[in-house]
């Protein structure tokens, strides 16, 4: 167990970067969504690490709220992907260019 906060924050930054590159380069809407989840998790890791650095639990409570919001976001996002797939038969982020169908 290391007490060095910087290591955790750097790990969080690396995971966030990987998530960003995934969102920018992948074309499958579901994989793009997973990369967004990875970015949220990276932020959570930083929050938990800072919570331990400051010696109070506010960071952990915030990480818990982030998880709740992420769950709600996944539910709505996946429902949208399903609707787009049903009407347009594709899960690619390049295909839907109109705002209505």
């Amino acid at each position: 167990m290391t007490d060095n906060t910087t290591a955790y924050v750097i790990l969080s930054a690396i995971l966030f970067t990987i998530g960003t590159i995934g969102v920018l380069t992948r074309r499958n809407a579901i994989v793009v969504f997973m990369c967004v989840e990875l970015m949220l998790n990276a932020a959570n890791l930083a929050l938990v690490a800072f919570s331990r650095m400051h010696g109070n639990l506010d960071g952990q409570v915030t990480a818990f709220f982030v998880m709740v919001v992420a769950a709600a976001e996944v539910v709505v996002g996946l429902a949208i992907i399903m609707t787009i797939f049903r009407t347009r038969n594709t899960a690619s982020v390049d295909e839907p260019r109109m705002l209505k169908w």
Partner: protein
Amino acid sequence: MSFVILASVTVIAALGLLFARKPVHAALSLAVVMVGLAMIYATLEAPFLFAVQIVVYTGAILMLFLFVIMLVGVDTSDTLKETIAGQKVLATLLGVGLGAILIAGIGQASIATMRGLSSANEGGNVQRLADLLFSRYVIAFEATSALLITAAIGAMVLAHRERIDPKQSQTDLAQKRVADYAKSGKHLGPLPPPGTFARHNSNDTPALLPDGSQSTESVPAILAGGRADEEAKGE
């Protein structure tokens, strides 16, 4: 030491998210990332978040992802044609640049070493978190309940499909089949199952007709579409 192992496993699994061709493999590597992060939370004296991370993320959210992958079709891999020229290269360069700036910035900043949570966790991590959640953060906590209900209703509205014409009963279907037979001589019986007389019996292998040609009717349209797409891409 445990941090080094967990961090490398997590980063390698996260890279799998970038390079996996099939969404299922991406989802499985994301599961490894989630469990790795959960263990890091355990080393950071956050046992409650350790449990929540595994139950909510790997248990609920990832299973939801897998359900949707199964519904949308396992074979929907990324399209290869680029809509914007050079977008992938540019995006990767910018992403790596962002990472470099972040890491350089964090390296420059003087971040204090960890004080530890032994005093804050006194009497149990879950109990102390509950104290905070139901006192200082009670408004936010109530707001999340509204958010969750809204999200559930939103998902139901999005997934709901209104039935426009009345449901056809078995009698209607049988009468339609006989009417089709009387009009065009279409075969009355059931369609041939996939794999009949073929080399494999998987669902996407078309049945072989007596003259050796493939019966297109034996394969569900969505499976045939996926197979045809892959062959068009030259796999």
